[in-house]
């Protein structure tokens, strides 16, 4: 089991958003988080990444296998693509940039400054970091924002390849990435916390 979440409850802004979340993902499987804005997709992903404390429940998956990618890309506009990727490669101790650049179709961008790239190209550079980490479990928060149709398709293929290599991904997205039977759709609406439930910290005052 790559990820196993049991009756997890998370809060944001003093209000309980999700409760009783049960998610199980095998290696080679992807989970697609669905649900309207504000249901708690980002909060859930951040909690899994260990950036945010959970209220209750258990998460079984090692933090060392997790690679989180949020709304922001974490790339520096004044550095070149190569320099940005080199930095993340060094942090995660993985050597080969060129291979990853090939996969994410940014080889010909390597020497340009990130500040001169379009939003979509920038996003691709940000996502290329995923390949550099060499980690098993990808937690992706709206990865396809500002990607065009072809880029989405490419990205879908990258995720497929990752799943074939026994990787695992939990993705918050509204777009069909073409993962077909490998994807497990998780509708977060059914875990929406009952109305009137506050965070533990607020409940203490009632």
């Amino acid at each position, binding site marked *: 089991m790559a990820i196993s979440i049991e009756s997890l409850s998370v809060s944001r*802004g*003093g*209000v309980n958003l999700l409760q009783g979340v049960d998610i199980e993902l095998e290696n080679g499987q992807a989970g697609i988080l669905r649900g309207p804005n504000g249901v708690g997709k980002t909060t859930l992903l951040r909690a899994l990444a260990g950036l945010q404390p959970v209220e209750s429940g258990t998460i079984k998956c090692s933090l060392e296998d997790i690679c989180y990618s949020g709304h922001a890309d974490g790339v520096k506009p004044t550095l070149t693509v190569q320099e940005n990727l080199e930095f993340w490669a060094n942090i995660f101790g993985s050597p080969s940039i060129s291979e990853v650049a090939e996969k994410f179709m940014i080889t010909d961008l390597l020497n340009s400054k990130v500040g001169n790239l379009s939003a979509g190209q920038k996003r691709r550079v940000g996502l290329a970091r995923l390949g550099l980490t060499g980690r098993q479990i990808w937690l992706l928060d709206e990865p396809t924002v500002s990607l065009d149709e072809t880029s989405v398709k490419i990205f879908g293929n990258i995720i497929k390849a990752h799943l074939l290599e026994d990787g695992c991904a939990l993705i918050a997205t509204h777009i069909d990435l073409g993962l077909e039977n490998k994807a497990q759709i998780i509708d977060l609406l059914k875990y929406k916390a009952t*109305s*009137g439930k*506050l965070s533990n*910290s*607020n*409940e*203490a*005052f*009632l």
Partner: protein
Amino acid sequence: MSFWEYANPVKFLNLSGALLPYFSIFAAITIIAGISWGFFFTPDDYKQGATVKILYVHVPSAFVAINAWFMMLVASIIWLVRRHHVSALAAKAAAPIGIAMTIIGLLTGALWGQPMWGTWWEWDPKLTSFLILFLFYLGYIILWAAVEDPDTAADLTSILCIVGSVFAVLSRYATNFWNQGLHQDASLSIDKEEHVADVFYYPLIVVMAGFVLLFVALVLLNTRSEIMKRRAGAIMARSRM
């Protein structure tokens, strides 16, 4: 029954509501008694004349100013370790009182210094460290006000309080080193009460006890306000959903 039971905000509200009148009354009685004793029934100092009477407001306020910070430090650590909301809010509640006592200490220090040293302000290590203490209180209070989420604010201010304590102690030694007590005068010294003659000492102790009671009463009052604000916020958040 454990002491920590009163870390529950609602229980604390009930308990503090019952205790507050007693603390307030005892504080008032003790302070009035001590001040009257000191002001009317003690002789003038042979060296300092009538100014020695400033002792009865200067020393207790300075004592509370320092120990309020110490109480905040303890409360901050309890919050970080045990996550009791009352503890964090008590630390928040104590800060304005601490800064008020620091201001009193500085004002009375200047008023005492003028006739004794011939100047309103002297960069004496003790007065200087009170000025520094004032800055630490200021930073702490402003940080509380600047952070929106109450738990985040409590966490950040608690860590600032701990780090600040280390640097406040360092500053204390630094000021000592920097201006090696040109005006060390035993009766001016806060931590050397034993040098104060008994006739001044006993009323002083009474006033100090009164100031401590006053501090406790005010902390209880302010903590109650903070808890009620949080409770109101929680109820609002619940009804809005």
